[in-house]
């Protein structure tokens, strides 16, 4: 069985490629990797739900179509079909809208010892966010 690698902001996730839609993967595996679950109210992640008009194209219960997911959630996507790898991210317009709110988006990244650290660990404090490279 071929594998499909899906890259999002939380990292890269390997799925078994299943025969559904353009890029079918197990719905359960997709949900645990990305946080997005198909419910009656639509595609939901935490408190955010995106309405799904054509739920038959999105999922057959067992599998979810990653290509349809990207279209419905309005994300941008780069597909390398020959290498079975897909990256999805924020579109320029939605990133610009988010930046204009001036709300500091939280993120979670590993520190040098592999422990996960989030911006929200420093709530109620002033934060200097420094980006640098060791080269």
């Amino acid at each position, binding site marked *: 069985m071929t594998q499909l*690698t899906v*890259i999002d*902001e939380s*990292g*890269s996730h390997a799925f078994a490629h299943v025969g559904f839609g353009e890029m079918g993967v197990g719905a359960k595996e997709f949900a645990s990797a990305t946080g997005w679950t198909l419910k009656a109210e639509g595609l939901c992640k935490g408190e955010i739900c995106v309405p799904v008009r054509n739920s038959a194209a999105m999922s057959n219960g067992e599998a979810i179509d990653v290509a349809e997911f990207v279209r419905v959630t309005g994300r*941008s*996507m*780069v597909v*390398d079909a020959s*290498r079975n*790898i897909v*990256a*999805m*991210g*924020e*579109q*320029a317009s939605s*990133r*610009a809208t*988010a*930046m*204009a709110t*001036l*709300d*500091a*988006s*939280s*993120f979670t*990244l*590993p*520190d*040098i010892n592999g422990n996960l*650290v989030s*911006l929200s660990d420093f*709530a*109620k*404090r*002033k*934060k*200097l*966010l*420094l*980006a*640098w*490279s*060791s*080269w």
Partner: protein
Amino acid sequence: MQAVKEWATKEPLSYPVLIDTMHIVADLYGIVNVPAALWIDENDKIVRPADSTPASDMWRSFSGVDSAVHHELLRRWVRHDELTMDADEVRSFQVLPTSEVQQARLHRRIAVVLREQGDEDGALEHMDKAEQLAPHDWTIRRGNMPLRGVDPFGEKFMEFVGEWSAAGSPGFKLGTGREK
């Protein structure tokens, strides 16, 4: 990674050092070059946007940035709550991404993952695409150099700087401490 570890463990640090191979923070905060800094207040609002902020004057003759200017502004904010700009000014100095840059970031992420999987050819292909889409973004062009085995301070880098200058030096708009 090794160099970061060596630096970060030389002395005990009071802040965490995080590894962002996918450039998640650059994407979220409009960071187009490093070193860069931005300020986030107690209510998680961005009160100063990303800008070039060297920690020292080591590269001052090259960058034309007096690092002390940012340090002083930072001290005043931390100690006395003095803000440097209002919300509209913060917005006006943000570097918003183009669709091409967002696509480039995705190609770069694919390159990083393919490289981890041992697919060097695939990685190179996606690095090329990223650079075609975002030829003047330092986090893409210069950020790819070590991945390609190219010296990020060498000839290729100077070529890039020339291209970038000829294009009008697009990037951070604020210019904290810039002398020229």
